[in-house]
């Protein structure tokens, strides 16, 4: 048999840390396998949105993709836990969990849905940005329309903080902010910067409510197509790619914050405690879900 090609699609631009790390993965794969295993990357949503790409993995016409854990949760429900606000004490805690046993179990959990998680890329933490009103306490969010991702957890979080969660597609958000359909949104610094939402929103409140990582996923159909040696190569290449992406991400985050500040955005660093206290109601809704409740407990135990 000749060389095998792995087709990998994602929704980000070619300058994004995720894409660069994937290129690195391809080079590593090429080196390890001596050209027997090659990676073909399709950036910019060429083959579909994140949800659609996961479906293509299940269908079998695509091999790998990168999605937000928030998208993954609609396929593999245990991932929901990562969307919980203030779940992690800090970023170090988050990495400890994601790179440890719990993270591995979450990645493996996808297999029963034909989606094998391979690793977690860093997607920073999400914070609120608002157009006209400064937000330093949860009370400031009262009555504000905040755009959220279409995720039950995200909506519950904004409601519990007193805001009105408004699902609007990412593509329509710029004009919606500009025209005042919503008063603000929430995302990580590089996305805030690259989407140019900082042209409209002049306040960025770094409450860092959610640490929602990106997940690198392979279809189980691809995994079965590879022999043990090839699986080994792929795992190694992924590992290297993850380390590299996290370095790039850290740099991109600093650069993004500097750039938006230079563009006139006021960066606020609020006391996170009142925010964390208010969202406890979000956790209450998971008491009845034993899987999630158990995961929350395990995660909180990790030092």
């Amino acid at each position, binding site marked *: 048999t000749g060389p095998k090609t792995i087709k990998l699609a994602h929704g980000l631009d070619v300058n994004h840390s995720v894409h660069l790390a994937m290129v690195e993965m391809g080079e590593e794969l090429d080196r390890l396998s001596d050209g027997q295993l090659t990676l073909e990357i399709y950036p910019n949503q060429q083959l579909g949105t994140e949800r659609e790409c996961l479906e*293509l993995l299940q269908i079998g016409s695509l091999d790998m993709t990168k999605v937000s854990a928030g998208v993954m949760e609609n396929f593999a429900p245990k991932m929901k836990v990562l969307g919980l606000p203030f779940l992690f004490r800090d970023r170090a805690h988050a990495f400890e969990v994601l790179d440890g046993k719990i993270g591995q179990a979450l990645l493996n959990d996808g297999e029963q849905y034909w989606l094998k998680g391979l690793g977690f890329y860093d997607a920073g933490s999400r914070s609120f940005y608002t157009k006209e009103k400064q937000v330093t306490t949860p009370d400031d969010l009262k009555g504000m329309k905040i755009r959220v991702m279409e995720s039950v957890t995200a909506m519950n979080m904004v409601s519990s903080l007193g805001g009105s969660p408004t699902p609007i*597609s990412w593509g329509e958000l710029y004009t919606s902010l500009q025209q005042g359909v919503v008063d603000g949104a929430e995302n990580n610094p590089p996305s805030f910067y690259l989407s*140019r939402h900082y*042209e409209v929103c002049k306040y960025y409140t770094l409450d860092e409510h959610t640490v929602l990582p990106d997940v690198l996923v392979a279809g189980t159909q691809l995994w079965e197509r590879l022999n043990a040696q090839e699986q080994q190569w792929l795992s190694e290449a992924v590992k290297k790619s993850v380390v590299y992406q996290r370095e790039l991400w850290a740099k991109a985050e600093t650069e993004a914050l500097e750039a938006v500040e230079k563009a006139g955005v006021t960066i606020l660093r609020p006391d996170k405690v009142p925010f964390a206290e208010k969202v406890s109601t979000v956790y209450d809704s998971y008491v009845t879900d034993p899987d999630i409740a158990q995961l929350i407990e395990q995660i909180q135990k990790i030092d």
Partner: protein
Amino acid sequence: MEYIPILVLVLSFVGLLSIGTPVAWSISISAILTMLVSIPYMPAATTVAQRMGTGLDSFALLAIPFFILAGNLMNKGGMAHRLIAFAKTLVGSLPGGLALINVIAAMLMGAIAGSAMASASAMGSILGPEMEKDGYSREFGAAVNITSATTGLVIPPSNVLIVYSLASGGVSIAALFLAGYIPGILTGLFLMIVAMVWAKKKGYKRGERSNFSQVVKTFIDAVPSLLLLVIVIGGIVGGIFTATEASAIAVLYTVVLGFAYKEISFKTLPQILLDSSATTAVVMLLIAASISMSWMMSYENIPQATSDVLLGISDNKIVILLIINLILLFVGIFMDMTPAVLIFTPIFLPVVTKLGMDPIHFGIIMVLNLCIGLCTPPVGSVLFVGVGVAKTSIQKVIKPLIPLFLVMILALFLITYIPQLTLWLPELFDL
């Protein structure tokens, strides 16, 4: 470069079209045939099915059925002819008066919403029958409607410019929006000139000059209808609703007014809903098919391969820009706008920026190019809508479309080679 998929694609597509297969099915069938070159049957068939479904999974697309519906309601509900009557008293006595109204209205509507398909369906269903009643050929009316609808994609607000900003890695949306005004209006003016000349040549009857009291009377009649424009624009600008939601408000308003005029009843409403959903379905199947086709092309790396070959020809800026314009015009023949922007921006933008071109300027050029593509057969969503609402056929509208295409291309070349037309406004506002 892999030739087999391209060969299968082109041959099957041309073959299917020429034996009279409906365009949407031709696209879908040649997409699956091409896919079968490299993907086994089961995953390939499932993927095409998935693309058909997810191709329509967009909130922004909703403006299409709603404006089709609002257009039908305005037609049946007595609003359209009141608007036309008023417009006639204003410019009806000029050669091609109704066509001029169509262009201006499309630009206005584009300045409100930003969906060319919605504009084509609304203007086409409102003004089309009026033009025909006045002796215009149905095809000429459709051609003017189709081309003028695309000006709304360049005149802000424009969702496609937002897509470009994302694909280009963050070119300022505000700057892109400002940059779109002059090119959009320029293109509209060019189309109006052609419409006037064509109407004069064909000897379409001019309206009579109206006296002041007629103007006032028709204006008062038209006020409730004109108010729709105020509600829609005001609602969007005032931040009450998004462009898509505005289209639903337009439906509500037209229903209420239609009932008030006693021209619509609960008896006639279902038929209007059915007609609108049939028109919607025609358009939607075409979009769904185009999305399958675009997916397959990206999967086979066809866009990348094509541009590699063509860009190997020269490194002169003027020549490269000419080649890129030609490629994009060609791409637009087969591809829908959003996927084309997403696929070709990352390929071309690094090349042109290396040549010293402003990314804002390039974004406008790209969108203008693809605007022309939206009106060209065989794959052109605005063309399909325009032909669909006018109840004519693609081959019949081609003849009146040609002169309109030529001036669109002329405008495109002016905008390509005179960057100030694009960059003056954003620079004026320091963006």
